[in-house]
């Protein structure tokens, strides 16, 4: 008996929208390079390469006197503290914002708080730092507040999304069993989302360590401020020590954060 041989179904129709968008993106990149006054030839001349090598050679050897190492150590602690405190403040405000932003109090508060969170995270840390330094003066406080403001916008949005995506049944089940809305949230929804929130927090802390080092350049204290000072005086070996301290600090926090996130999401 001859049975018809089953054939493969037709592939889905090609979506030209994505191809057109990719083409437009490519055109934009080409146009960007074409319009910018990039002098590639000057960049790769022998003179330019020699000057760069001379500058880089000035960094070696890094300064290793005990006095300067101690100063660098305390600046590292200041950078670490700025990032830690900035992230902690961001968690507190982010969590508070995430409740209305997840629609728990209705559609209007959700839209309003999400708009506020958009504003907070759209402004880069450096701009926040400039604003905060005017308000709080030079030093680590302004940098900490700048990190907190930007990160609260990021974490508020991420926490709100986590709360919205949490399985609703456990909370509904507790409400059915007579738990108040607050108790049901704390017993059912928050514990579900806590590992994810912790993971986001640790990731943002990593980012904030790097950001805190850069914020120092605009006068927010820590390693960044030291780097700017020594670079502006062309004290390259001292600047090299500060850069190495930055790299070590970032690597240390990356490692700790990665291990903690793995433990949390296991």
């Amino acid at each position, binding site marked *: 008996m001859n049975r018809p041989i089953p054939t493969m179904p037709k592939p889905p129709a090609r979506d030209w929208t994505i191809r057109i968008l990719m083409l437009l993106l490519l055109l934009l990149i080409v146009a960007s390079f074409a319009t910018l006054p990039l002098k590639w030839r000057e960049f790769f001349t022998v003179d330019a390469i020699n000057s760069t090598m001379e500058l880089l050679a000035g960094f070696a050897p890094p300064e290793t006197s005990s006095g300067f190492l101690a100063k660098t150590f305390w600046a590292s602690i200041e950078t670490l503290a700025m990032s830690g405190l900035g992230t902690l403040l961001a968690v507190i405000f982010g969590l508070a914002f995430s409740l209305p932003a997840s629609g728990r109090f209705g559609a209007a508060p959700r839209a309003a708080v999400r708009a506020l969170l958009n504003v907070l995270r759209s402004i880069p840390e450096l701009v926040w730092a400039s604003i905060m330094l005017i308000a709080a003066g030079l030093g680590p406080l302004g940098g900490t507040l700048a990190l907190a403001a930007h990160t609260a916008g990021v974490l508020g949005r991420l926490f709100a999304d986590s709360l919205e995506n949490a399985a609703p049944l456990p909370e509904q089940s*507790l409400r*059915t*069993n*007579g*738990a108040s809305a607050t108790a049901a949230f704390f017993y059912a929804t928050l*514990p*579900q989302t806590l590992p994810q929130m912790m993971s986001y927090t640790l990731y943002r802390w990593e980012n904030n360590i790097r950001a805190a080092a850069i914020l120092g350049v605009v006068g927010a204290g820590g390693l960044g401020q030291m780097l700017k000072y020594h670079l502006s005086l062309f004290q390259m070996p001292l600047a090299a020590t500060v850069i190495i301290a930055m790299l070590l600090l970032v690597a240390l926090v990356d490692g700790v954060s990665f291990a903690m996130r793995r433990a949390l999401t296991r």
Partner: protein
Amino acid sequence: MLELRQLSKSYNGRPVLDQLSWNFKAGEFVSIMGDSGVGKSTLLNLIAGLDTPDATAGASPIIVDGIPMSGLDDDAATKLRRARMGFIFQAFHVLPHLTLLQNVALPLLLNGLPTARAAEMLDAVGLAGREHDFPHQISGGQMQRVAIARALVHRPALVLADEPTGNLDPETADAILTLLQREIKATGACAIMVTHSQFAAKKTDRVLLLSSNGLKETTNVNPFAQ
């Protein structure tokens, strides 16, 4: 224990329940059967105060343990459920991040009662020694045992069960229903179980059929009894 008086519910003008009346006594285990969509789960939600019946002039259409449900606002209905009702769901609804003991102790914590009875209830449902296990470490049948312990731990006057054996194999379902029957008799609660299963209904004191004509007891003797 539970009185339904001319209870009606309609959605967008379409009547789902029409003028239901029934008295449920303490210590009674009743099953409610009926076709899909006839309003069995709606009836449970109304009894629990999770949904509101159609407005009626005069007396409250639902009275739980002497308390008219109609006069209760959301907070008062929540408190009534917390203190006097227990719930068992088809999908167990056991909280995955809490241990079995913490799950069972929840109604006690919510009611501000001592939590010692939680371990006793776990023992009663055959889970002694598993107090510190998490739900992912036990089977579906064991999870339903935890749900039964949780529903009864605070000695509720009324237990509402929505297809409690719907996700279980026949042997486990039989064990769960026997356990439910025993614990209901031990606590003196009134239990109302919505089910599609004739096998489950056999375990109850009486069977009510819900249809568009209302609630009707099929016979004084369980029609499925052998």
